[in-house]
């Protein structure tokens, strides 16, 4: 019992000491602290903007994904048996999730409905419907749409195959491309930030070389020596995350207030400020912390070899 109380007391005391030491060097390093915090800030602003855009695009893509379907127009020459055969053929495709039949009569009704008052003119066609019967095919994976469509196109009694007209593919391509560009940019920035932090910590270490040497002589463990530097990196990273969080939250809230009413009723929506901004803030703090700790690990390592 006794020794347990003593141990926990010791840990808290040690942690306080490490925190105090790390804060001391942050204030002492002045310009280097400022430079590395700024580097983290710039990096995280860009990372944050990138995340905001990517996550919204992803959300739009997901919404559209659920909506992607292939409309297979059946040749008028096909009889009931031919239609059945076609259906079976389509069903055997591995990409296909579901297939539903929509008669030309239903198709016309849908068309009339979607056109509203102007659609009434099409009522004339009810006697002599020019439309085709249609199979509505959904694929398991939205990216398979194109592949499945081209297979179906070659089947008998298919007069025409229609699907997202390339819109979906374009969107996916765009998302993919911007993701890659963003990644390259961000990785470059992350390296810069890590490098600057590790340099700042190196300056601290050099300023404290004497102290570290004595600590090692009297038998301080490497972990004990390392802690203040890890904390210093951590603070630098977290400090660097504050401004990006504030700026992005303000900008996004304004953008949301502006866009959300315009998108009302539209099936495309942007992510609501709450909880999205909390998630982004969490990500940014975490990234700042990782950058900072990583930067200090890099510079401490070589000073602690025996």
């Amino acid at each position: 019992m006794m020794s347990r109380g003593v141990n926990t007391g010791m840990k808290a005391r040690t942690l306080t000491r490490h925190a105090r030491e790390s804060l001391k060097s942050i204030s002492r390093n002045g310009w280097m602290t400022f430079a590395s915090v700024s580097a983290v800030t710039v990096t995280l602003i860009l990372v944050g903007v990138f995340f905001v855009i990517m996550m919204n695009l992803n959300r739009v893509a997901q919404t559209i994904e659920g909506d992607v379907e292939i409309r297979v127009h059946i040749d008028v020459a096909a009889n009931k048996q031919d239609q059945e055969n076609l259906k079976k053929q389509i069903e055997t495709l591995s990409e296909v999730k579901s297939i539903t039949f929509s008669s030309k009569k239903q198709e016309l009704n849908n068309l009339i409905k979607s056109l509203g008052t102007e659609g009434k003119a099409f009522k004339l066609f009810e006697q002599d419907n020019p439309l085709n019967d249609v199979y509505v095919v959904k694929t398991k994976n939205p990216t398979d749409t194109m592949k499945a469509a081209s297979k179906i196109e070659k089947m008998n009694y298919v007069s025409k195959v229609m699907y997202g007209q390339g819109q979906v593919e374009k969107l996916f391509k765009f998302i993919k491309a911007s993701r890659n560009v963003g990644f390259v940019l961000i990785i470059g920035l992350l390296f810069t930030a890590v490098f600057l932090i590790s340099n700042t910590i190196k300056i601290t270490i050099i300023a404290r070389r004497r102290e570290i040497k004595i600590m090692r002589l009297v038998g301080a463990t490497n972990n004990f020596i390392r802690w203040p530097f890890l904390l210093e990196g951590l603070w630098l990273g977290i400090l660097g995350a504050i401004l990006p969080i504030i700026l992005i939250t303000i900008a996004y809230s304004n953008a949301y207030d502006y866009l959300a009413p315009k998108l009302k009723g539209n099936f495309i929506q942007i992510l609501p400020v709450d909880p999205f901004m909390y998630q982004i803030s969490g990500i940014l703090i975490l990234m700042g912390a990782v950058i900072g700790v990583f930067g200090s690990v890099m510079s401490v390592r070589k000073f602690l070899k025996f």
Partner: protein
Amino acid sequence: MIEMQEVFKKYPNGVTAVNGIDVRINQGEFVYVVGPSGAGKSTFIKMMYREEVPTLGTIMVNGVNIAKIKPKKIPLFRRNLGVVFQDFKLLPTLTVYENIAFALEVIEAQPKFIKKRVMEVLDLVNLKHKARMLPTELSGGEQQRVSIARSIVNSPKVVIADEPTGNLDPETSWEIMNIFDEINTRGTTVVMATHNKEIVNTIKHRVIAIESGKIVRDEQRGEYGYES
């Protein structure tokens, strides 16, 4: 106890500073290490506290072969010995008290124990009244006393000193030597490299003379043996 067997040290630049040393120093001994400049005294001493690693050979210190010790175990090993340098190696921003307490704080000793123990060693080196001063406010001899106090605050079995009086005037050197003698009387092994002829010839102890990385003489109650 310190025991070296067939110890060689070749630095990366090709200099062989220690060239086959066998020696045994028992617990409680006081040993002077003497010899010309560049003979390998500091190298010999640095290997005892694992500042340098021998190229060949075994070095047993307090029952541990530190030629083969795992890096993780070095901190614990060092808590059992104290080291004193010519240039004191005090932290200029800490007071006398803090400099000594530092050695206990970084090995996470209990605050109560630290207070008691620091006052004890300050008393031993006669600096209780200057506990709150900064090193820059002290004379060289006083600074060295602080550094000695720090080296024994862990109650080590061995104290290793590399020319502890090298920067001090003769009179102050005697004060410092008396403190080492006192520490030794209390049972601590002392190994000291020195160029101080007068002291070696007056306060008689075992003398190990090193030349070109080899022990050329090893006498109980020996003489310095060189012109200083």
